[in-house]
């Protein structure tokens, strides 16, 4: 039996890697994927805790998060496509006309 905390630690590490992806990557799509990784990491923690407490609610939360992720992806990718049409770039570093 693997201690639950191992999963949680793993999920924390994955979460942080995801966050780093947001901070480091310049490709809007990759940034977005990193966010997905973060959500995924959180999900892992949820499932682990659900197992710990034998509570289905944890698993259901994961289910909802997946749905939300899907919704976000729909909107997000549409947005990226739209931006690409206007700016011909999805480099977040080039999207900085608003500032100050």
């Amino acid at each position: 039996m693997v201690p639950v905390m191992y999963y949680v630690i793993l999920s924390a590490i994955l979460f942080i890697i995801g966050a780093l992806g947001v901070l480091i990557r310049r490709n809007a799509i990759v940034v977005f994927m990193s966010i997905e990784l973060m959500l995924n990491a959180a999900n892992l923690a949820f499932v682990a805790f659900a197992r710990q407490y034998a509570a289905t609610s944890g698993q259901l939360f994961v289910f909802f998060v997946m749905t939300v992720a899907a919704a976000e992806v729909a909107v997000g990718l549409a947005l990226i496509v739209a931006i690409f049409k206007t700016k011909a770039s999805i480099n977040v570093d080039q999207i900085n006309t608003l500032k100050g």
Partner: protein
Amino acid sequence: MTVQLILFFILAIVAVLTAVGMLVSKNAVYAALYLILNFAAVAVFYLLLNAPFLAVAQVTVYAGAIMVLFLFVIMLLGAEKLGQSQVQAWQRPLAIGLGLILAAEMVYILVSGAGGLVVASQGTTINPDFGSPANVGMELFTKYLLPFEVTSVLLLVAIVGAIVMTRVEKK
């Protein structure tokens, strides 16, 4: 060391490595593929954690549908690679430093502060039905009826939003 533990470590290494791979790969397509691998590894964890329904959903919805969509958009936009630029170069080391600090803190606090959980988990017996699609579905449509309905609205909104964002205006 049990088999489960060995399996865990192997998979954990895979998960971390694929995540790092996503982080560092120059090509967005590679990044997406790494991520799919990562999701797959996580799906196996779900199985280990008595969540078969979620494991399936993870593979189909996440690794399948969502990531395919990503790949599709990457290809569509031809945005596999971005040109090199030095803009914000300073942010990378800073972010990594901060990330390492945070990771250290999390590990420390989870190991030391949340230790009680580890012990408690040992003896827990699990209903064999736990996490099965039937069980999850039952919960979903009774106790979690409202959130479930909300997700439907959410998806509707997402659809409308996606259309609004991409529809070509007829002038």
